[in-house]
């Protein structure tokens, strides 16, 4: 079963993310993780098709983010939250955990997606491993994804 059709701007955002290797999440206004692309799947160790949509509690408990002391970051501090609440891009660095338990330090930029019909319908979060070698592997698609 599926829900109602997504707003066009989210459909197009998903199509765009499908077509690029830069890791990215697509998140609904309520924080639900709607989609992530192959680049993001490479980093977190699971393809989206294995996981599907997740509400915010589920995906933050699986992947993080965490601070340098391994403490969960307050939701309010996430670039995603700031982008949705303030309606402007936001950027930060923090730790995430992949499916195999390995932690990665990433830089994440979130931007709100605002359609013509209503306010922000969601946000796109683009991120990179801070480690340059790992970033290169992920964005060139040479990173192994667990199946």
């Amino acid at each position, binding site marked *: 079963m599926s829900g*109602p*059709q*997504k707003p*066009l701007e989210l*459909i197009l955002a*998903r199509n765009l993310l499908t077509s690029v290797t830069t890791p990215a999440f697509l998140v609904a206004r309520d924080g639900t993780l709607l989609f992530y692309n192959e680049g993001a799947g490479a980093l977190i160790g699971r393809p989206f098709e294995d996981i599907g949509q997740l509400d915010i509690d589920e995906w933050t408990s699986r992947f993080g983010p965490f601070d340098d002391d391994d403490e969960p970051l307050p939701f309010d501090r996430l670039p995603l939250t700031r982008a949705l609440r303030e309606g402007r891009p936001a950027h930060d660095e923090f730790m995430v955990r992949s499916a195999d338990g390995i932690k990665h330090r990433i830089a994440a930029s979130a931007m709100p997606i605002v*359609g013509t019909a209503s306010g922000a319908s969601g946000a796109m979060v683009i991120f990179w491993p801070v480690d340059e070698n790992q970033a290169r592997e992920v964005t060139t698609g040479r990173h192994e994804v667990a199946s």
Partner: protein
Amino acid sequence: MKVRVWGARGSVPAPGPEMNRYGGNTSCVELTLSSGETLILDAGTGIRTLGFSLPPDLERINILLTHLHLDHIQGLMFFPPCFRAESNIRIFGPSSPEASLEARIARYISAPLSPVEVRELPCDVSFHDAPATEWQIGAATIRAEAITHRGPTLGYRITDGDTCLCYIPDHEPGLGADLENLNEEWISGYNLARDADLLIHDCQYTDEEYPGHEGWGHSPITATLTFASRVGAKRTLLFHHDPLHTDSFLDDLHRSARRCWEDLGGNPEQIGIAAERAELTVEGQPSAAPAQARIAV
């Protein structure tokens, strides 16, 4: 609901003896509702001849524009009711944060492109952003939603009693998307076209032509039919013919589409192709037993 096609061509008018059967006028479709009211879908060059066929005492004319590309508005300036003081014309179209619908259309109906300005038209004309929620015109309930094309573009779902027509003349739902396997909530236009008795849909290209035109906002045969199949359209009318496609080419395209639809498990009679002056009667069919709309040309 009665449907009459006044222009089925896309991009630019394509007159010529080799185009006579399908016609060279650009997008314009006339709907006659069960209440007798007329709805006009798009104002391509086909609206000029439609205008001559309308009774001069028609109380009100409603025009639903999908978008403002020239092949969908070019006929407005030559629409005879625009030049009659007694005409009451309401034009609906996509909103834009940039400018009002009237201001955007006035870029065309103004110097140096036009000898008249919108304010000089003698008719009573008003411009309206298509509402974000359903609205009523006569017997019809109308829903407009943004769909995948270049620039702000709407598709329309028009319901009259138990009959539903969907009009999406410019649409590329397969751009960057696996239409066959994608969950329906991620398919552009799905809500508009679901279970439509008649789907009038973009089919500008053959599959062989499409790679050179990917991202231009139009669909090849396979994407059109996959979309029609996913939404459960009971009949599909191929529309927005490429200006290079002659009558014989479109005959072949139609045959290919019917074969493709049959391969998808459908009845080839459900796939029609729009021709100028064609008239269709669309009647609601139960969802459980898809069947074709009746066509009389």
